[in-house]
């Protein structure tokens, strides 16, 4: 039997290690899962953006993507199911100096948390929301979600999904988001650039990231682990500024990716200060305790 030789006793450090709670690794994500890649793009973007990371907070809800808050070495909050955005709203209003990143899944943000999403977008609450969309509820074993394609199989739609999925960028735009983009986890450079841009942008920014769940979604829908990635590669159509109403995901005709919306309008806090706290604008006050 051949001996396996260890070339180096010490693993080389990953360039993003300083942003990871390495004492919490290994993570819970399954082999073939795309969340880690999205998470890594997010960390790279946090570095790239140049924002003050000491003043940056990651907030997650519940689910596989919701575990991201537990691995990032920043102030991070793993809240209740669907409630990352209102929790983050409280953080931001109490200390407007904080940069807020909400990192969570499609089920968390758009089914149980859908109401909070549309209202935070309407208010133009200054935060960056990254939604890992794996088309199903992964953590609980693959149930139908508000994003599951029509007729796709899940444990709760065994003969196919009778419902129509949301067009997430359209919902974000219609609700008032000032930055809306969609990428897949395969488009890591575009994704990282997009998250960087969103982090630096004032107002409610939303990025949908398509990501495979081979264990719970692929397996029930005749997709081998690499099939979804091939779809991402072959069916992606990058079309910046595409009409949000034409962004329904269609794995046969094509998946439109890109930056769709990038506009400016005052944030909730800007309006609130102007109407209710004009003295703060003059004095440039930050936190509520100062």
């Amino acid at each position, binding site marked *: 039997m051949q001996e396996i030789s260890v070339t180096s006793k010490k693993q080389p450090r990953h360039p993003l290690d300083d942003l990871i*709670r390495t*004492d*919490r690794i290994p993570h819970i994500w399954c082999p073939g899962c795309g969340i880690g890649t999205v998470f890594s793009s997010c960390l790279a973007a946090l570095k790239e953006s140049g924002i003050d990371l*000491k*003043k940056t*907070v990651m*907030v997650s809800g519940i689910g596989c993507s919701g575990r991201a*808050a*537990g691995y990032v*070495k*920043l*102030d*991070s*909050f*793993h*809240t*209740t199911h*669907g*409630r990352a*955005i*209102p*929790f*983050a*709203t*409280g*953080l*931001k*209003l*109490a*200390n407007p*100096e*904080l940069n807020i990143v909400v990192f969570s899944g499609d089920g968390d943000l758009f089914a149980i948390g859908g*109401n*909070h999403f549309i*209202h935070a977008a309407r208010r133009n609450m200054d935060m960056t929301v990254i939604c890992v969309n794996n088309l199903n509820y992964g953590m609980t074993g693959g149930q139908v979600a508000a994003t599951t394609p029509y007729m796709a199989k899940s444990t709760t739609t065994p003969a196919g999904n009778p419902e129509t999925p949301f067009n997430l960028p359209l919902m974000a735009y219609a609700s008032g988001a000032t930055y809306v983009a969609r990428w897949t986890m395969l488009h890591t450079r575009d994704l990282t650039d997009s998250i960087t841009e969103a982090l630096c942008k004032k107002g409610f920014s939303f990025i949908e990231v398509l990501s495979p769940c081979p264990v719970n979604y692929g397996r029930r829908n005749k997709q081998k682990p690499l099939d979804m990635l091939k779809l991402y590669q072959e069916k992606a159509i990058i079309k910046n500024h595409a009409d949000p109403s034409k962004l329904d995901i269609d794995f046969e005709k094509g998946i439109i990716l890109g930056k769709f919306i990038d506009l400016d309008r005052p944030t*909730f806090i800007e309006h*609130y200060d102007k109407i*209710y*706290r004009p*003295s*703060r604008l003059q004095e440039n*006050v930050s*936190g*509520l*305790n100062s």
Partner: protein
Amino acid sequence: MMKPAVLTGEYFMTGDVACAEGALAAGCRFFGGYPITPATEIAERMASRLPQVEGCFIQMEDEIGAMAAVLGSSWAGVKSMTATSGPGFSLMMENIGLGICTETPCVVVNVQRGGPSTGLPTQGAQSDMMQARWGSHGHYEIIAIAPSSPQEIFYLTITAFNLSEKYRLPVLIMTDEIIGHMSEKVIIPEAKLIKTVSRPKPKGRKDRFKPFAPGPNGVAPMPAAGEGYNLHITGLTHDEKGYPVMTVEAQTEMMARITEKIQKNLDDIIRTDSYLLDDAEIVIVSYGVSARTSMAAVAEARKLGIKAGLLRLVTIWPFPEDQIRELADRVKGFVTVEINLGQIHREVERCAGGKVPIFLVGHPGGTLIHPDKVVKMLKEAF
């Protein structure tokens, strides 16, 4: 327009408004709310008053979001509150649990109305008392207090903030529509006479700090987001570092932390009041607006030669068990007076342990209990 947080002076004020003023005097600078009768006036007062003291008010999309925002704001280092009534209180329960699990100071006011469901929106009740104790899932300790007048709600709101900051948990003010909408004289003292408590802040190296390692009184110091501690806060069972640990041992340790900090400080937390209790043979146990009914009934009963006295519960949870036990050894019986069909009554029964007879003067909700009903019970039962 800047105005003082403490509006020193004499006023004719409703309980709801006095509650808001008490919160501002306690240092509350964030309110996340949702309109609901009969608690809306608290939100309305906070909406106009908070910006005057550099604070922030937001009306959220529902009570679930309101409670979540209150927790988020508290973790940004700001004293925070919300106010609601029964249906909204039900919606807040999950995030109240997150507040308990993550040891997050904040104050939740429930201006109770008749239930269940939509019930009697404009009429008072005291029927959420057990929901206050056990409404969120899992086993935990909670602090709930019940004011009996607008003046008292002013002071007890300050007390609620102080207890929440000291023991790091949501503190519930269980008032009712009658106190909330009643106008009475309220005296707001000078700011320097108001004692406020703020959460203990950590000292020492930030990289070694553990956000759930208890201090001498069982409570951990609490930094805010953005102070460089790289906090991780989760509603999963977690260790002293705040990291999720899915073991029986971690669960046992965490549960000990969140329950013992209350159980070992009962003397500091529990407040009761009494009226003619020293020589009483029959003790009325009551709280909130029903304690006022009970006080009138005691006075009337004494005129009739019945040696009645009142034990008024200011703190409902944790329940003043020892006081009931001691009384059970020396009195002839108890009467519980509350606007429900016997919630705190069961606690009194439990603590009296069958030593003496116990009667309930309850009401399904919608109105005050008349003192005559209590006097009648005192005459007939003993």
